[in-house]
């Protein structure tokens, strides 16, 4: 087990280097001259104002953007490996600080959204499976299809309209309190709940037809005990896989929801940094997101062995 973890951590470094190299070189092939964009967004503060050629040259020189790409990348990599992710062009603050300051908001939103999706999705999926082909199943399945089809931005605005404007229960936007967390997490959680419900249903249908469940029924156990203690544990393994991917995705930020609710998370930081070509922040976010994604996957892989003793790591 320990060997496996160490191996995965070793791979993590390679993944981070690969991801940052890929993003770094791709950034230079997207439209727009990097120093020109930096001049507009960061120094002038208005994308519609053209910078002078002298200013663009000066900025290019100041940030070493006039050097070959490979030199720029390895210079960044060598600093990063020593723990220095650089400073943001925009704020002049260390990139790590920029990320860390947004981390609590990002984690809070990710965790609560996942909880919302589990609380809604798993019971719906189980009910739909147990009552297969009943009206309840159709309602749950239709609800899941609708849930997964609703665009986030539409649902977000609808929720604001209903809960903030008509019912006056929640704030429209912002962060800092539990109330602020309600609508963004419901928005994100609903779409994921739909996926969770569908997956739980199909997985549950498979499990409840297996011999050991039939045996449990034969022993005269109650249906609730069969579902909760015997079937659910195995049925949830694929659900956990999906949830882990969703978790990795959420920890990388959710741009649309963060924008609509003015939620200051990592996603918005990254998107703003890409627009402004704040290269150190982009690279920092990629490092962070890659680590998050790989770590969550590792944790989930480890959790399989707890949920299903048949799964063991023999490395």
């Amino acid at each position: 087990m320990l060997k496996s973890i160490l191996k995965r951590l070793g791979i993590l470094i390679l993944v981070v280097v690969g991801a940052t190299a890929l993003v770094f070189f791709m950034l230079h092939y997207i439209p727009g001259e990097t120093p020109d964009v930096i001049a507009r967004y960061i120094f002038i503060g208005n994308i519609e104002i053209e910078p002078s050629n002298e200013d663009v040259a000066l900025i290019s020189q100041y940030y070493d953007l006039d050097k070959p790409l490979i030199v720029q990348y390895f210079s960044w990599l060598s600093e990063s490996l020593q723990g220095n992710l650089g400073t943001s062009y925009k704020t002049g603050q260390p990139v790590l600080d920029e990320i860390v300051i947004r981390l609590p908001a990002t984690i809070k939103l990710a965790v609560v959204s996942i909880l919302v999706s589990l609380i809604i999705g798993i019971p719906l999926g189980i009910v739909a499976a147990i009552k297969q082909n009943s009206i309840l199943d159709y309602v749950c399945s239709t609800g899941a299809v609708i849930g997964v089809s609703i665009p986030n931005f539409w649902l977000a605005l609808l929720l604001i309209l209903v809960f903030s404007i008509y019912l006056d229960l929640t704030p429209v936007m912002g962060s800092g309190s539990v109330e602020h967390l309600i609508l963004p997490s419901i928005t994100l959680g609903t779409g994921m709940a739909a996926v969770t419900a569908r997956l739980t249903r199909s997985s549950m249908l498979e499990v409840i037809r297996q011999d050991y469940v039939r045996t449990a029924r034969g022993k005269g156990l109650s249906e609730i005990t069969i579902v909760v203690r015997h079937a659910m544990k195995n049925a949830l393994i694929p659900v956990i896989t999906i949830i882990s991917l969703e978790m990795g995705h959420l920890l990388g930020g959710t741009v649309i929801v963060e924008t609509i609710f003015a939620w200051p998370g990592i996603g918005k930081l990254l998107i703003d940094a890409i627009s402004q070509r704040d290269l150190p922040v982009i690279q920092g976010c990629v490092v962070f997101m890659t680590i998050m994604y790989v770590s969550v996957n590792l944790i989930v892989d480890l959790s399989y062995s707890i949920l299903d003793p048949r799964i063991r790591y023999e490395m």
Partner: protein
Amino acid sequence: MIKININSIGIWIALVTIMGVVVFSGCTDKGESDTAKIGIEQKLVIAEPWGISSVDPAMAGGTLNNFLVLETLTFMEPDFSLVPGLAKSWELIDDTTWRVHLKNNIKFHDNTELTVDDVKFSFDRNMEKNPTIRGELGIKSVEKIDDYTIDIITEKPDAAIPAALSYARAVIYSKNSIERDGIIIKPIGTGPFKFEKFDKATDILELSKNENYWNGVPKLDTVLIQGGVGEASTRELAIEKGEVDFTTEPPLGSTERLKTNPEFNVIIHPLCQGYKLNFGNLSKAPYDDIKVRKAIAYAVDKESIVEHILYERGEISNGMGFVPGIEWRNNDLVGYPYDPLKAKQLLKEAGWEDTNHDGILDKDGKAFKITLYTWPQRPALPPLAETVQSQFKEIGINAEVRIMDWSAIKERLNEWGAIRVSGGATCMRIPDPSYYLERNFHSEGNSNSYGYKNEEVDRLLEEGRSTFDNKSAMACTGKCRK
């Protein structure tokens, strides 16, 4: 200061320049505001579309000036005239030196007195940390004469310096402003509101009343600015809920809806903001032909755009983007009225005819198919581009609308027939006509991306900028407009 009267110089690029009205504030009794919760009597909550990110004046001077924390040596009045700010007067010493006299007894928020040392510190720091500020101001250096007198040395003779000193990013702050690692984290200014704190985690900037403000005590006790509310609908709904008192760039048409609600008092302020069509490249076909450019100007129904896209908030500028009330605006200018027949006639004279009867004009086998590029950040731009697209269709021009990031558009402007449908980039960042004209029409102007070249215009613009006598400057631009 130079007074310049502008006429039809705008035909080269400005086809539709409509003054938008986009600031929006609502007052409501609905809901329990934060003010009531914490017992503060006068509190204003603002939703700002852009993120705040930094409070270092070298990078965020414009933001801090907009929110009345930091001030400039000269001020621009609502009618765009120039008045003394932290400076009480200014005079020209020689062709490249302006002497500025500071007002006495102006106190910073930390109760220390404003002196030339702070002014020099601010200019030197701003220009060092942000090279674009030096370029925009045209200042070479600032030299202390005594505690209340400073000399502004320019690169070349520049009559626009007093106006440039009102530029929102030429802000003055105390040398005692608190720095960390070379970045100012607590700016100390002279404005009506004091910087209290900036919470980067929530993107909220908090200001408080400056009881000792030199120009009268402000009525508000606290101002809270929530940055990064990028979604226009969110800003509108926050106003409706009563969470926010003031915002900019609400969704088009939202004010009409809120006006019908008796709980709201909607106040709309005019802004100097233009919408226009920029030809991609004037030296290439089809826009190297003035008849084509004029035809396009006649083909755009500007009145319809103001009525249907801008909800009647704005007016046709007839040429340049100078708003009504500016002293150098030529109010007699008639511009190019909507006249599709004339547009067709001009295109025919330029050799564009529909020879294959497919509804699209052609010339030497080349169909008149163009692209209108615009970007999504300004709510009016995409519908405006689509309206222009349908109006072009009426005269036989097939236009495709492409909405993309600004930086991606710049590289496409050399394509055949490219037009940029743009907004913002106001003419009044610095209240002097030469600033805007030079940027746009001088052959080396920063914003002259369409490649307009005219040696006579270059000469007149340079002459106007370096002429300190108003009458002579007027004469320069008089010739220029012909």
